[in-house]
């Protein structure tokens, strides 16, 4: 009887170890798989010409990613500029000022917002944000904008990343010891001064990590942005111009890519570029957060 119990323990231990290792190796497999698929185009043309050319003509085998990279950067920048101040102020309020009862009312909407699927954000963006940009904003600045623009993509994306930034910031503020706050208050600082000079200062690495995580989330968001940003492969000159981010490029062309030589490989390279950037950003910011929470030895 005793032997059977020990054998079961050993078998489960070993098989669980294998599964754990497998789940960890997945991240390497994804990288290798995408790299392997993008090899043909990398052998065909140099990386710098791919990244720095804006000419995208799959039928002539010229694949320049510049317009798409520019589109991604624009949309992400707009999203962060809108989302960061709002999330920072909300997180400070919820963590430093709000009473427990107030928190109980205000936290659930943020959770719900993070659970809404991207495609729903897209529908809402088409119905509300696109007309808003076209009718209320663009007419004051440019002659014509369809509303399907970099700005619309940025606004929708900002709302999608706000819950993510807030939840990380709340965790970060939580790691600041209460003793520090009390010390500052006891020497006569107001609560706002304590926040400015103690809490925010102490949380700076964590805030940075939150921003980096939000940037990488924004880089990869596909469907919602694709639905509102216009998808014209030109480098946008103003925020009212349409743009075409990398994930949208991949998603929009998956059907026809098999029929044109190198096309599939070019799109897989786009996915590989996204993977590399987001992998690096995530690794750096998670390590910062682990250090803050004392989970790294």
């Amino acid at each position, binding site marked *: 009887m005793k032997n059977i*119990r020990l054998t*079961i*323990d050993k078998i*489960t*231990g070993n098989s*669980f170890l294998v599964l*754990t290792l497998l*789940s960890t190796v*997945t*991240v390497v*497999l*994804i990288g290798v*798989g*995408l790299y*392997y*698929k993008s090899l043909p185009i990398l052998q065909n043309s140099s990386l710098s010409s791919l990244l720095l050319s804006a000419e995208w003509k799959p039928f002539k085998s010229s694949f320049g990613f510049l317009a798409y990279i520019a589109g991604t950067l624009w949309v992400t920048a707009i999203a962060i500029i809108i989302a960061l101040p*709002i999330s920072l*102020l*909300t997180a*400070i*309020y919820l963590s430093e000022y*709000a009473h427990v009862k107030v928190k109980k009312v205000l936290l*659930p*909407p943020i*959770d719900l*917002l993070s*659970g*809404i*699927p*991207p*495609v*729903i954000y*897209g529908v*809402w963006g088409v*119905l509300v944000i696109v007309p808003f940009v076209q009718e209320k904003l663009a007419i004051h600045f440019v002659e014509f904008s369809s509303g399907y623009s970099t700005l619309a993509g940025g606004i929708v994306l900002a709302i999608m990343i706000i819950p993510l930034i807030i939840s990380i910031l709340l965790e970060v503020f939580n790691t600041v010891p209460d003793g520090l706050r009390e010390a500052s208050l006891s020497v006569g600082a*107001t*609560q*706002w*001064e304590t926040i400015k000079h103690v809490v925010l200062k102490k949380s700076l690495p964590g805030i940075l990590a939150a921003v980096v*995580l939000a940037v990488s*989330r924004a*880089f*990869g968001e*596909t*469907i919602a942005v694709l639905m509102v940003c216009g998808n014209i492969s030109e480098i946008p000159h103003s925020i009212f111009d349409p743009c075409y981010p990398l*994930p949208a490029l*991949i*998603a929009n062309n*998956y059907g026809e890519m098999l029929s044109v030589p190198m096309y599939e490989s070019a799109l*897989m390279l786009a*996915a590989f570029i*996204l*993977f590399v950037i*987001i*992998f690096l950003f*995530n*690794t750096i910011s998670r*390590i910062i957060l682990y250090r803050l929470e004392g989970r*790294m*030895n």
Partner: protein
Amino acid sequence: MKRKLEEQFFKLLMILCTLSISGVLIMILWTITSKGAGSLTWDIVSKIPEGGFYIGKGGGILNAIIGSIYITIGATVFGLLISIPVVLYINVYAKKNSWLATTTRLTSDILFGLPSIVYGAFGFTIMIYFGLKTSLLAGTITVTLLVIPILVRAMDEVFRVVPEDIGNAVYSLGGTRWETSKILIRQCVPGIITAILLSFGRAIGDAACVLFTAGYTDSIPTSLDQPTATLPLAIFFQLSSPIEEVQNRAYAAALILTIIVLVISFTAKYFSKKLSKNKI
């Protein structure tokens, strides 16, 4: 005086920001409901597309609803089969804060951060490698990869805070690690349910993963190698149609998906509340 004024100013700004977030949520739900409710008929949820569906003729999106449910349930079951052992290994079998446990947690955080379009592209790569076509199977495998890190992270959070005394009590009675695991699983049931619901919510709403791998079809799949329609793609494709009836059906589909996700969210809330009550 200036100090107080500054504080008052920022406090007001903070309250405005916090309220505006709830405002945006209400606005999104209102837009989706008011647009979708008018077109939401019994036909839409109970019929598959009939001839001429995409030029505004009869039928519904039952194919997409069923397809989404198939993929979501399949992915969550496969995901659990992998993630429960992983969580048990890093919390029970491995030494506390061992190198492997930390690395696994870090990796699942990183995998959690990867966008679904990358999973979609990778799923597509595997699919081509094994000679599969866009199908229920390929879609399920890809979504499984997407939900594993969600499940691991959510369950790990619960297992990590179980008091060590419970494990020690089992060990002191001569129990093995496997027997300890069984006790801990029972202790963490509400947390596991919350994790399942989280993964459900994410899997059912994801479009970029299934776009490459599950394909789209007007019929309900009857075997694993058939293409499968999904709700998010049904919304996406119908919204891009120029015909008004088809667009209206996209709004109805969006309302259906929103209701499903909200029900899942509220159920998850209920179980996580239960969890904090049971805490020792």
